[in-house]
Each structure stands twice: as C-alpha cells, then as structure tokens.
C-alpha cells in the first residue's frame, strides 16, 4: 500500500462514524421520503401528491405564513443586528458584561419564558395596559394578525444579540487603513458604511444569514409553547402542518410537504448565493 493510500484510509476512518450516522439517519431516509412522495399506497402516481397538496387550503395557508415570516423576519433581524453592531463598534471597549447580556436570550430555554411573554402580550397584558392609558384600542396579540408581529418580535429579540456578536467580530476584522484611505478620498460616514464596511464583511453576513435561516425554522418552538398544536390562522406555519399530519400518519402528504419545504430552503439559499457573488464581484 502506498503512503498516499494509507493516508486516505486514515482520513476515511476519521469521517467514518459520522458518515455511517449521516447515511442511516439523513441520506437514506431522505431518499425513502422522495420515493414515498411519488406513491399512494402501492401505486406509482407521479406528482399527484404534490398537486393535491397545492389544492389543500391548510397547506397553502401554512406556506403563505412561512413565506411571510421568512421574508420579513430574516432581513429585519439582519438590519437591526447590523445597526446595533455598528453602534457597539463605535465604543473603544465593550465590557464582557454587555457581551454576556446580548447572548443571554439565546441561552435561556424557550419554555422558561412563556409566562413572561403572556404577561407582556395578553389582551390585558403590560403592552395593552400601556396602550389603554394612551387611549389606543386593545391589540389582540394572541388572536389576530398581530400574532405574526409578536412571533417576529420574539424571534428578533432572541437571536439579535447572537447576530450582533457575530457582526462585531466581523467588523473587528476590517482593517482600519481602509477607512482612513476612504476618508482621505472624501467619503462621508454613510459612504464609509456602504462602500467599505458592507463589502468587507460579506463572509460574516453570509454566516449570519445561514444562522438566521437555521433558527427561523426553530421558531416553531415558540409558536408551540404559546399556542399549542393549533395556533390561529395567522401563524399556522408549515411546521405546524407537518406536525399535525403526523397524527393521522398520512405518509405521502407528509413526504411531499417535506420535499416542498426543502426546495423552498434551497431556493432561498441559491438566491442568496447569487446575490452575494454579484455583490462581492462588483467591488
């Protein structure tokens, strides 16, 4: 055996445990899932399951809500955390107390805070108490279209600090000389941000984006904690749809819904990849 081959073999042994696990618990099941989505019972039906899914009103509702949440919450979180990171960056030194405080929302388990959110957002909660004294009508956070707003707020609150820390780390890596050079060329502070900072931290932005996507799908935990299995129609997400279909074990429908959800994610990712490539090449 040549040395090169031996090296390949050792490398392979290191990956092997993970490879076996991935194959058994992710890849093989995923292939089974694709196959199941093309059958009803024993009969091959092609794309009929998918077509049926799109004529299912609950599914359309869930898809619509998921799209709204993703399109609103992810950019919103990105912008807010970027601005706070810029703000923090203007300090010479940040005490580690603040760093910890920013990470606490991610660390604290979802279930711990349910009651706090209820006291804050209920029809007779703190926010409505405040609105009432200002003479504004009650906002029903738990049963109207404001539910979506509440869930987006909780999502931003929870992950904002984490993203801020990631952004500040990225900002710290931008060489100071670039700013000085741009200033000499007469750039104002807005141009400094758009022409120097944003292009320079594209890799960080990309990582933050990945994290945000991964966590945006975990918002189901908050929805479940606050609303149980059947939330109101404004925040009925694809995750709720899939979860609820487990109880009647409709495999074909479940499988096709999963495949659609994955296609949805892959499209978002591709769009971002293209956008990112364009952006960094123009600089």
């Amino acid at each position, binding site marked *: 055996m040549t040395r090169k081959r031996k090296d390949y073999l050792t490398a392979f042994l290191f990956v092997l445990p993970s490879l076996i696990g991935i194959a058994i618990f992710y890849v093989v099941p995923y292939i089974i899932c694709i196959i199941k989505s093309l059958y009803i019972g024993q009969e091959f039906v092609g794309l009929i399951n998918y077509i049926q899914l799109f004529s299912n009103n609950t599914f359309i509702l869930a898809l619509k809500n998921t799209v709204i949440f993703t399109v609103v919450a992810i950019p919103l979180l990105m912008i807010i955390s970027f601005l706070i990171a810029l703000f923090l960056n203007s300090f010479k030194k940040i005490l580690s107390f603040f760093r910890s405080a920013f990470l606490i929302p991610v660390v604290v388990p*979802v279930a711990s805070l349910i009651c706090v959110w209820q006291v804050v957002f*209920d029809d007779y909660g703190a926010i409505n108490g405040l609105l009432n004294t200002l003479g504004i009508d009650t906002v029903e956070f738990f049963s109207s279209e404001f539910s979506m707003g509440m869930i987006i707020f909780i999502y931003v609150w929870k992950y904002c600090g984490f993203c801020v820390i990631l952004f500040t780390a990225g900002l710290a890596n931008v060489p100071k000389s670039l700013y000085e050079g741009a200033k000499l060329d007469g750039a104002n502070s807005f141009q400094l941000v758009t022409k120097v900072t944003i292009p320079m931290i594209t890799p960080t932005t990309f990582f933050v984006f990945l994290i945000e996507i991964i966590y945006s799908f975990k918002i189901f935990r908050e929805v479940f904690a606050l609303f149980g299995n059947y939330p109101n129609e404004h925040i009925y997400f694809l995750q709720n749809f899939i979860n609820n279909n487990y109880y009647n074990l409709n495999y074909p429908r479940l499988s096709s819904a999963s495949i659609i959800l994955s296609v949805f994610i892959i499209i978002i990712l591709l769009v971002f990849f293209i956008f990112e490539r364009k952006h960094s090449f123009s600089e």
Partner: protein
Amino acid sequence: MKKIIKCIFLLLVTAIFLFPVVYMIACSFMSSSQISKMLDFANGEYKDLNMIPEMFTLEQFYQVLFRRPEYLLKFWNSVIITLPTVIGQVVVSSFAAFAFAKLKFPFRDKLFFIYIVLLILPLQVTLVPNYIILDNMNLLNNFLAIILPGTFSTFGICLLRQSIKYIPDSSIEAARIDGASYFRIFTRIIIPQIKGGLITLTLLCFIDNWNVVEQPLIYFEENSMYPLSITMADISNSDYGIIFACGVMFMIPALVIYFYGHKDINLSIYDIEK
C-alpha cells in the same frame, strides 16, 4: 454629551435583552397567590410588570423540588435526552471535522457540501424521513429516537471544522515528520487548541436539545416520556404557582454551561472564508 447619550442607549438595548429573564427570576420568588393573580387574564385588570414580590418566598421552589415529583421527572427526561446527544455529537464531530479540515481524501469537498445542505434543511424536513427509519428500526417510543439522529447532526462538524482550520498546517507536518500518527496528532495537537470551539459547540448543542419539542411530540406516545420543554407549555391553571420556579430550574443548566465557558467562546473565527 454625545458619549452619555450613547451609553444610555447601550444600557437601554441591554435592558431589553435582559428584562424578560430578570423578570422571570423575580417572579419565581413570589407567592402563589400573587402569581395566580398575575396570570389570571380573565379578571379584566391590566397587568403591570411588577418585579418586586409582595412577599419574598421560596414556596415555589419548595413545591417543585419536594412536592411535585412529576416536574422533576420531566426535568430528568430532558437530561436523559440532552446529555448523551451532546457528548455523542462533540465526539463524532471532532473526529470528522479534523478530517474535513486537515486531511485529504477523495470526494472531500463534495461530501462537505452535502453536509452543509443537511445542516440547513429544517428539522421538520428530516423528521419525516427519520420517523420512517426509526419505525423500521423499532426505536419509536425510545429515547434513542432523539439521541441517535441528534448525535449525527452535521452542525458540530461545520462549526469545529472552522476552528481546526485556524491551526497552522506546519505544526501538523512537523509532528508527521517526527513519526506521530494522525490519531496522536488529533489528541495531542488538535484537541487542546480547539477548546473554544468545543465549548461553543457544547453550549449550542446543549441549548438545541434542551429545547427539544418537535421530536418527542411525534416519536413518543407516552406523555410521561416528554421532556420539561414540552410539559411547560401546558402547565394547567392549578399549577400556576410553580410555573416560574420551573422556568428558573429549567434554565439553570444552560446558564451554568454558558458562564463556565463564556470566556473561551470566540465567535470571531466563524467567518466563512472563500
């Protein structure tokens, strides 16, 4: 002047992040009558965010720890699910991450791309395929149904690969010339240098599994196997008195890990370089 405004703004932002947590801890020292009054949303009074207990008491904690064993059992369910998953993931991931970051083998980059795709796919997508395979393996209604897939999550590999990449190749080559095996290099050179990465992974992986909601709902028929993260969502009215103590108890392990390791958590290395 400008500096003072900036400091005030910083404190304000920090307060928004900390408030719900501090509020919950304050509430855990309130008496059950005060809690029930606060959580009774039908009495037509607006709630104020009163942080000061009318009467400081440990009644809630006493109830949870000594009188209501069902909540402690749920807490242990959470531990049984989380602990093996975290240990498993950290071990499996660090081996694989070393190979992906520093060793050469055929199809390495293509394989890693698949890992990234698997990382991004949401849980709900993999739940269905997983359910099918677990059903065939007869693992439903078993804690292993959550532990095994969790162990092989690709998250840790992507995270640790990034830390390992920062270790210079020269130190590995030098050890190779001295005749050290890759396993020895892994244990003696790599592991000691990625402490920060390992702690970050432990924390994030712990939080993720500690909050597990989706899998038990689907894989377990018995409510008695549910972890505390699910049970807390439907604590009934009669138990309102202990709800905040349960919340505090549930968040302590996560906070302990965080405060134990927060000095080593260095997130600056997670830029995805080209």
